[in-house]
């Protein structure tokens, strides 16, 4: 188990009603690997990563996370969710709790960490994302970039093996994008397995081990960043990149 791939998609299909949103997805992510998924809107990239922690259910195929297969079994789902952290486009911080409480909540209630230890842990991670002074404020009092960094710290407090990012900078004002990408780059440099859905191609070039292009529910092309950006193979990839990289 400690040597196999950490995420495995084997012939995964998903339908929303009659709409075939994920088509024959085959993907393996190794430990410590950084995957960036890009593509036009509606291509299924968010759905793909949401299947990893079962926020979406797949109807056909097998998804394995760290050896555990994702099925209807609630206990295996909870087990997986503890090891997979997720950062959302709309942050999804809990507005009725302070920043510190947001970060300490899951360690206290899921990992049964004592409160003081959990708060120390939370302060550690808040320092890592460079906002320790905001600990006692409420999310509503922070800027978008700060809120997203709190979201990253909150996910890290559970010590996950995988971090999923669903368009983490898409809802941010441009001047705040850099601080979040810096936090994500630091995380990558420390060896975290990351799957990132983003339009930030600079980040993909610098940080990703592989870049995947998705369109209409399929993974059209996946390659190392130099190859991907310099020599895209598929027609659709070329068309997409020509629009994105002006």
């Amino acid at each position, binding site marked *: 188990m400690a040597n196999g791939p950490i995420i495995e998609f084997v012939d995964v299909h998903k339908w929303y009603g009659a709409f075939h949103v994920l088509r024959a997805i085959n993907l393996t992510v190794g430990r410590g690997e950084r995957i960036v998924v890009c593509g036009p809107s509606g291509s299924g990239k968010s759905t793909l990563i949401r299947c990893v922690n079962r926020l979406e259910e797949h109807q056909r195929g097998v998804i394995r996370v760290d050896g555990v297969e994702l099925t209807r079994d609630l206990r295996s789902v909870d087990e997986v*969710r503890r090891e997979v*952290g*997720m950062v959302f486009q709309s942050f999804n911080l*809990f*507005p009725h709790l302070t920043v510190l409480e947001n970060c300490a909540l899951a360690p206290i209630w*899921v990992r049964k960490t004592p409160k003081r230890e959990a708060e120390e842990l939370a302060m550690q991670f808040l320092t890592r994302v460079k906002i320790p002074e905001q600990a006692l404020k409420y999310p509503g009092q922070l800027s978008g970039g700060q809120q997203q960094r709190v979201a990253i710290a909150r996910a890290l407090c*559970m010590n996950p093996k995988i971090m999923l990012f669903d368009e983490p900078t898409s809802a941010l004002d441009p001047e705040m994008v850099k601080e979040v990408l810096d936090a994500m780059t630091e995380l990558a440099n420390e060896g975290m397995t990351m799957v990132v859905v983003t339009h930030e191609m600079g980040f993909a070039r610098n940080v990703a081990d592989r870049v995947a292009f998705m369109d209409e529910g399929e993974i059209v092309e996946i390659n190392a960043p130099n190859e991907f950006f310099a020599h895209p193979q598929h027609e659709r990839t070329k068309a997409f990149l020509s629009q994105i990289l002006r």
Partner: protein
Amino acid sequence: MAVVAYVRNATGPILPPPLAQRGAIGWLRANLFSSWSSTAVTLLLAAFCLWTLPDLIAWATTRAVWRAPDGALCRAHQDGACWAFIAAKLDYFRYGSFPPTERWRVDVVEGVGAVLIAWLLWPRAPRRGFGALLFFVVYPIVGFVLLRGAVSLRLPLVDTQLWGGIFVSLLTALVGIVFSLPLGVMLALGRRSRLPIVKAASVVFIEGVRGVPFIAVLYMAENMLPLFLPPGWSPDRFIPPLVGAVLFAAAYLAEEVRGGLQTLPRGQYEGAMALGLGYWRLTGLVILPQALTLVIPGLVNNFIGLFKDTTLISSVGMVDFLAAIDNGLKDAAWSGPTLLATGYAFAALFYFVFCYAMSRYSAAIERRLALGRRQ
């Protein structure tokens, strides 16, 4: 030609707003006289108040009869309230037929209850968890023993038939409010559940109870409760109205709470799920605190309505506050034309004080919560 480029080289001063925009004059301009129609309405209402209020206030204060041994003075002063009647009957209105020597027990229960409630409702009170334990666990037992009596503690038994007046109304409202909220929350969660039996049961309960008037619920509780209990157990006459009040209020609260649950963005559920929180943890820690604060106006609305609806328990034989006043009005020694108005004015004042206090408290809570969630 006009100069297009411009660079500011000195910052301007920060000034206060003009005199007509701030202070009392500013408030008057903005709220009462902001436009011609607003001014017209203000003047009309001011005229109406000047026409009606002085008379009403005089009826209640300067022309009222404050002290009298019986109704003769009130019959002589027919243009004022007969507060002497209220003063004379006050003990009956407060305790019903509770034996006079044991009334201290009601006072103790009311006093302790008021202290515990204030403790729980004061946002910055210390050790509220302990207060909650006292209020929800210790207080009901102690209160029940004190009010009902216990031969072993040398407290004479007082049959619930003798209970009446203000303390019955307060007790019914308190039990109704305290027990209906958790039940209402469970029903709301049940209605949103994906398990078909739980969902169907919740829907049937909510729609069934909502489709029936409160009096009918009380009658049904009165007649059907004995069927649900083991044979030989006959419940105290006060239990069916309490159960009826709780079930009735819970059905309405459930829909309020469900509205709040629906309003909450899906992202809150997802954020909590992604952290590995199970259903009950995320519901209790993330969803309910937010959903309940969203619907505080609606919840307090229901509580205020329930507080006044408790008067209907008089139709199943309990002597609540309004029934006590009705009984007092039948006293021949006090009969007179001003008696009815006085009695009901006093009742209205009592209900108004409590309901207004509830609504002010809820406004204060909403303000406080808004500070922490400026989004």
